[in-house]
């Protein structure tokens, strides 16, 4: 196989690599399917071999050799440290706050990190009916912190979500505490353009990192609210050759 040129990568690859880097070795991560699962499995192959992957199908410590198509694929069960029932994974493992990071995707995300995966439009008369909540409301409530990964567009990054499927920071700082939500909520949003974090004073999502070659105006145009940009805006390091090689191998065996 030829060595990947680290200058030649897609925005999706940059997003997956940036998301993988956010996961610390030795921590536990409740993984949603799709982009979060790609990032978590990539992290386990790079810098975080001791990352515990928890899937809502009841697989604790899954170590798949390829990306699963669904959260209940047989390989997750065969490679897990333990396979438990669905009531157990939610009641005993998630609810008491044993999981460090909840890693979620979203159809819509708003300026305070609230997530919608339920409907676009009115609930009773939806423009688009989406799959719904799954495990996400309690993942967003109970994990110590939440990372969100999704492609950035003005349609997805909205001022206010049509439906709060999973609570982020409500209408601003302090809302989580007022409601008694145990976890810290979304602390990091990784997109194909950059990285957003809640402002420490207001909890409003603010652009803190740009991926290489991306201009702030591009990110503003792909955001449905007047996006604030951090004063000390950083640039994400480009994917290394190793990161790209491992990601592409992972995608290849999973195709």
């Amino acid at each position: 196989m030829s060595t990947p040129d680290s200058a030649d990568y897609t925005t999706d690859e940059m997003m997956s690599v940036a998301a993988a880097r956010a996961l610390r070795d030795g921590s536990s991560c409740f993984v949603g399917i799709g982009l979060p699962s790609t990032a978590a499995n990539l992290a386990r192959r790079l810098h975080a071999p001791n990352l515990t992957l928890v899937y809502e199908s009841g697989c604790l410590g899954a170590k798949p050799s390829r990306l699963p198509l669904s959260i209940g694929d047989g390989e997750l069960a065969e490679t897990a440290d333990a396979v438990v029932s669905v009531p157990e994974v939610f009641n005993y493992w998630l609810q008491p706050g044993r999981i460090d990071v909840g890693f979620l995707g979203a159809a819509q995300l708003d300026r305070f990190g609230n997530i919608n995966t339920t409907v676009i439009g009115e609930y009773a008369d939806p423009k688009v009916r989406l799959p719904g909540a799954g495990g996400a409301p309690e993942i967003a409530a109970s994990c110590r912190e939440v990372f969100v990964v999704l492609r950035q567009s003005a349609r997805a990054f909205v001022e206010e979500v049509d439906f709060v499927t999973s609570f982020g920071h409500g209408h601003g700082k302090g809302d989580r505490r007022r409601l008694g939500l145990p976890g810290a909520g979304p602390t990091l949003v990784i997109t194909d353009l950059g990285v957003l974090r809640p402002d420490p004073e207001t909890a409003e999502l603010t652009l803190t990192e740009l991926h290489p070659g991306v201009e702030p105006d591009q990110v503003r145009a792909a955001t449905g609210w007047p996006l604030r940009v951090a004063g000390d805006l950083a640039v994400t390091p480009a994917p290394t050759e190793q990161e790209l090689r491992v990601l592409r191998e992972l995608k290849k065996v999973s195709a």
Partner: protein
Amino acid sequence: MAEVIGLREAVAELVRDGDTVAMEGFTHLIPVAAGQEIIRQRRTGLTLARMTPDIIYDQLIGAGCAGKLIFSWGGNPGVGSLHRFRDAVQHSWPVPLEIEEHSHAGMANRYVAGASGLPFAVLRGYTGTDLAGHTGTIKPITCPFTGERLTAVPALNPDVAIVHAQRADRAGNVQLWGITGVQKEAVLAAHRALVTVEEVVPELPPRPGAIVLPAWAVTAVAEVPFGARPSYAQDYYDRDNEAYQAWDAISRDRAEFGRWLREELGAEV
């Protein structure tokens, strides 16, 4: 004791028009053959309960068997949308579909309460979400010991639960292993339970970690090899991911779905 009978006879006896039916199996061991037999027998007005409606409920909804769906995630796992479900919710086709929507944690706990013979379950869930405002079966409750505000969800006690398992013995005792989802809870919560199995064996050799549903907890057992396809049965066959991807094209179009229904199941919308 469980009767060991054929699938057609089991569905005819156990599933009635207007019933609340829970077919469970979390990606693994989904009772697909039993669901398709319900379509063949043209049951109507069913309330279908299932955490992840999956393609089997897409087929039942598209065929017009369901009037209501109780669920927590309605998608084609790893592929995208359930198009028959979406068509029913967005355009009432072929019949209007009422929905009662929960989170996974809420659904799992509703079965736990049902299996426990309790009226409700309590969880630290739903806080701050819009689900409570749209679902009548999500209510706040105050802990009598600490004063903490929590959420109560009522027991779900289906008329009939249908699950698929690896094997049973001739007396109707059932072993199932791998990802076991909420199958045990659904069976114990239901008034009647049908278990389809890959094989009926004379005696069940012990198998560590294989949940045993004793024959007296099950109404009927039917031997249906490959009864979970295109989902899978651990140690018997793998998930047919291509079939899940192919379902996207079949289900996207009403006419194409109608053709599939006629050719595969001999049924009409």
